[in-house]
């Protein structure tokens, strides 16, 4: 993620091939690092990592969420998942949703950030406006959109006014999923724009100025200078988008409730339902860990593809 300035590959730890730990790390530096890390790691270890391990154990039990009995069932929950057509439907929906959210988050966040990244009258106002959905609760945002996307809602009235046929957005499988995707992107647009904006502002101005003098067009500059330089941030935005999509729950819950006929039943919704509504906590946890594995896989592939790995983990 360091590529915005000179990559630090030169100091890669892999470089000194076979030296002892004592030689590779200065004792003083390691101690400093421990001091820097301990406060955060104590908190995260206690309240995040330990509960995850504990939850991982639950995924191997048939715990119903209510009783005290936690019967160990081995990998039964995972086996059941593979045979559960609801899981596969949900996985398909989530993958499409995550793909859509990732691509559109990057595109919209970058576009808005580029538009905001230069002096312009009223910039602060624009920034404030784009940030509004981010600060609003998901429930409120989802209900507004549900109302606007209603068969007799604002959007359809608009379509009618310009002579287009109306669409029953939330009551058809694919349009409902599209609506959910757009709502998610809309809700996080300000968030992604700010991330890109801070990254843009940290870019060395001299580079783009040089390119301007060379007669590069705006599009060429963006395509060949800015976008590659922003790769680390893009990685971050995509990871965030993936996490949002795979854990999305409250937006779906309010907008469609997972319907129509399972068309927007994302994994977050499925997990919540099994764990808390149906009292099948173990199974819900198993789905969570399966989705974790999937997300990690995608992230690592992306990590490699964007080249974040080399410069980053130096």
């Amino acid at each position, binding site marked *: *993620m360091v590529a*915005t*300035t000179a990559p*630090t590959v030169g100091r890669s730890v892999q470089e000194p091939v076979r030296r002892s730990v004592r030689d590779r790390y200065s004792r003083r530096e*390691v101690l*400093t*690092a421990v001091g*820097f*890390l301990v*406060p*955060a790691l104590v*908190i*995260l270890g*206690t*309240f995040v*990592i330990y*509960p*995850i391990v*504990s*939850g*991982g154990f639950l995924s191997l039990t048939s715990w119903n969420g209510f009783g005290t009995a936690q019967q160990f069932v081995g990998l039964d929950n995972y086996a059941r998942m593979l045979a559960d057509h609801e899981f596969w439907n949900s996985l398909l929906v989530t993958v499409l949703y995550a793909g859509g959210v990732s691509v559109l988050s990057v595109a919209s966040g970058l576009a808005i950030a580029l*538009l905001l990244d230069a*002096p*312009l009258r009223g910039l*602060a106002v*624009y*920034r*404030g*406006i*784009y*940030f509004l959905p981010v*600060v*609003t*609760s998901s*429930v*409120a945002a989802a*209900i*507004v959109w549900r109302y606007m996307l209603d068969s007799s809602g*604002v959007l359809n009235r608009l379509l009618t006014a310009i002579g287009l046929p109306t669409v029953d957005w939330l009551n058809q499988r694919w349009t409902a999923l599209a609506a959910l995707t757009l709502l998610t992107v*809309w809700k996080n647009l300000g*968030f992604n724009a*700010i991330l890109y*904006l*801070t990254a843009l*502002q*940290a870019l*060395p*101005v001299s580079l783009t100025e040089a390119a301007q003098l060379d007669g590069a067009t705006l599009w060429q500059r963006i395509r060949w200078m800015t976008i590659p330089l922003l790769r680390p941030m893009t990685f971050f935005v995509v*990871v965030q988008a993936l996490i949002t999509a*795979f*854990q999305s729950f409250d937006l779906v819950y309010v907008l469609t409730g997972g319907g129509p006929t399972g068309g927007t039943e994302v994994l977050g919704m499925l*997990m*919540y339902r099994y*764990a808390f509504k149906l009292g099948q*906590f173990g199974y819900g*946890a198993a789905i*969570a860990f399966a989705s*974790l594995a999937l997300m*990690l896989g995608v992230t690592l592939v992306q990590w490699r593809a964007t080249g974040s790995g080399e410069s980053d*983990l130096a």
Partner: protein
Amino acid sequence: MSSTTSRPRPVRWGTAARHTLLILGSATVIVPFVWMFLTSVKKRSEVFTRLWPTEWHWENYVHAWQAAPFERYYLNSIVMTVGIVVGHLVLDSLAAYAFARLRFPAKNPIFLLLLATMMVPQFVTIIPAFSLVVQLHWTDTYWALIVPRLADVFGIVLLRQYFSTIPKEIEEAARLDGCGRVRTFVQVVIPLSSASLATLAIFAMLFAWNDFLWPLLVTNGDEMRTIQIGLAAFQGRYATSWNYLMAGTLTSAIPTIVMFLIFQRALIRGVAGTGVKG
């Protein structure tokens, strides 16, 4: 802002196009908020049957405010949010610096492990985490609301990335002057990172302010509840009071909007002043 006068490039057209695009985008944001506002001043029966209210019921705001001890909820939300934001700024930035600059064994595995924890849904961890808080006898205290969320991986990843973009030379210069790691961090890295710290502060604040399930679980009454729990009560079992919910949502979002406006200056100007550019 003054650059438009001196430059020969076709800035004027660019400016107009940018405004047009930004305004179009803004419209998708503004329209839903106008609807929220209109809903917040309607009477119940007109919420779904009319677009424009026949009468303006400003008293909805008073009703919403009185439906629960919201003063207390605001106070709790503020204490909790400040605690969490400060925690994130300190703990996350320390850890992020270690990951960005220091060399120590098992650095990559630890970092990847942390990255992976971000992808575990909250509901898997929430019952074990809650059990811990109960064993610590923290329920119904600020400890429970703040301590478990003092650090988070998102902030560490974000800051680590910014820290690694700071040219090493700046730090090395400081260290040649005899600064230790800690002093370099405090006196050189932190001031250079005001923009990223502001970004983190904004996101930490948003997360803390809007969090719902955790505060609900660790509190058992009005004394320690936060705003989002109060708002959730408007979505009742038998009917949802959309007008009150929208009034409450709009007023509860004000502190976060104000904080955003304050932080965004640091966020934009901070970068300009760092000397990193150019």
